[in-house]
């Protein structure tokens, strides 16, 4: 049982640095290339956090516009993408707070205790459990399942496991410590696993992968 393969290899810094420098110098075409490069990622992150399509569309526009306006202040000490993700996460959390003013939404919150993530049901899954469902059903299951996580957990999960940011980049983008990222990631992963059990566990008399 090996480690999870890394995804989303970073683009060569030199090429990206050239684009960012050009955009900083006022080249709108260079900025448009940066938008093309990262709009899908920003949309995915925004929709995961806000769980609302219209809000996610707004976040994409607002985040890129804010990045454009603040480019002169970007010192290039981090990757442009990490800086952009930080802006997008803040915009998405603001949207979420507006929609749910009755609930405090913060990345700093410690949500309940570690007990909430302790595995309760330990059942093995069928081999390739996702193939039991068609694409639309699977999307529905995955969407509903991740929606049930606290925002602070699903934000860390989407940055690390869906977008492929490193632990250090995730900590930087969310202004969290590395232990805080790791703690939230573990709990997010375990809670998702627990919630997916009911859809993916091996049926009696069916196949088992052990």
């Amino acid at each position, binding site marked *: 049982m090996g480690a*999870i393969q890394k995804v989303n290899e970073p683009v060569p810094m030199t090429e990206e640095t050239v684009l960012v420098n050009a955009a900083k110098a006022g080249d709108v075409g260079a900025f448009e290339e940066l938008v093309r490069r990262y709009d899908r990622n920003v949309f995915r992150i925004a929709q995961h956090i806000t769980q609302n399509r219209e809000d996610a*569309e707004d976040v994409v526009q607002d985040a890129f516009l804010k990045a454009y306006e603040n480019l002169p202040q970007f010192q290039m000490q981090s990757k442009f993408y990490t800086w952009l993700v930080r802006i997008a996460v803040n915009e998405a959390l603001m949207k979420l707070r507006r929609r749910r003013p009755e609930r405090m939404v913060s990345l700093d919150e410690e949500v309940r205790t570690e007990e909430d993530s302790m595995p309760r049901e330990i059942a*093995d899954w069928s081999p390739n459990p996702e193939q039991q469902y068609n694409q639309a059903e699977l999307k529905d299951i995955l969407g509903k399942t*991740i929606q049930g996580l606290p925002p602070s957990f699903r934000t860390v999960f989407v940055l690390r496991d869906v977008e492929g940011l490193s632990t250090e980049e995730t900590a930087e983008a969310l202004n969290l410590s590395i232990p805080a990222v790791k703690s939230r990631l573990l709990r997010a992963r375990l809670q998702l696993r627990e919630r997916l059990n009911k859809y993916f566990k091996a049926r009696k008399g069916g196949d088992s992968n052990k």
Partner: protein
Amino acid sequence: MTCKDFLKELTDYLDDALDQSTRTELEEHLQWCHNCYVICNTTKKTIEIYRDSTLYELPDDLRGRLRSAIMTKCRAKKPSTSGA
């Protein structure tokens, strides 16, 4: 190693971020603890399913509209060329 110790290290194990001796200890635990084997296996699968899913893909037509709106606003801003 207890099951609780195993769980604490699970994220670093799946991310291949453990030193060799802790990794060996974990793998020894997995040899005999079926519950931890199942948790490890299904957690890994959870990550892979989300990573490989097409959840929240940006449709091409919406992508075009959003980019066009963003760039219109950027051009209207007349970019600052100062180094701030």
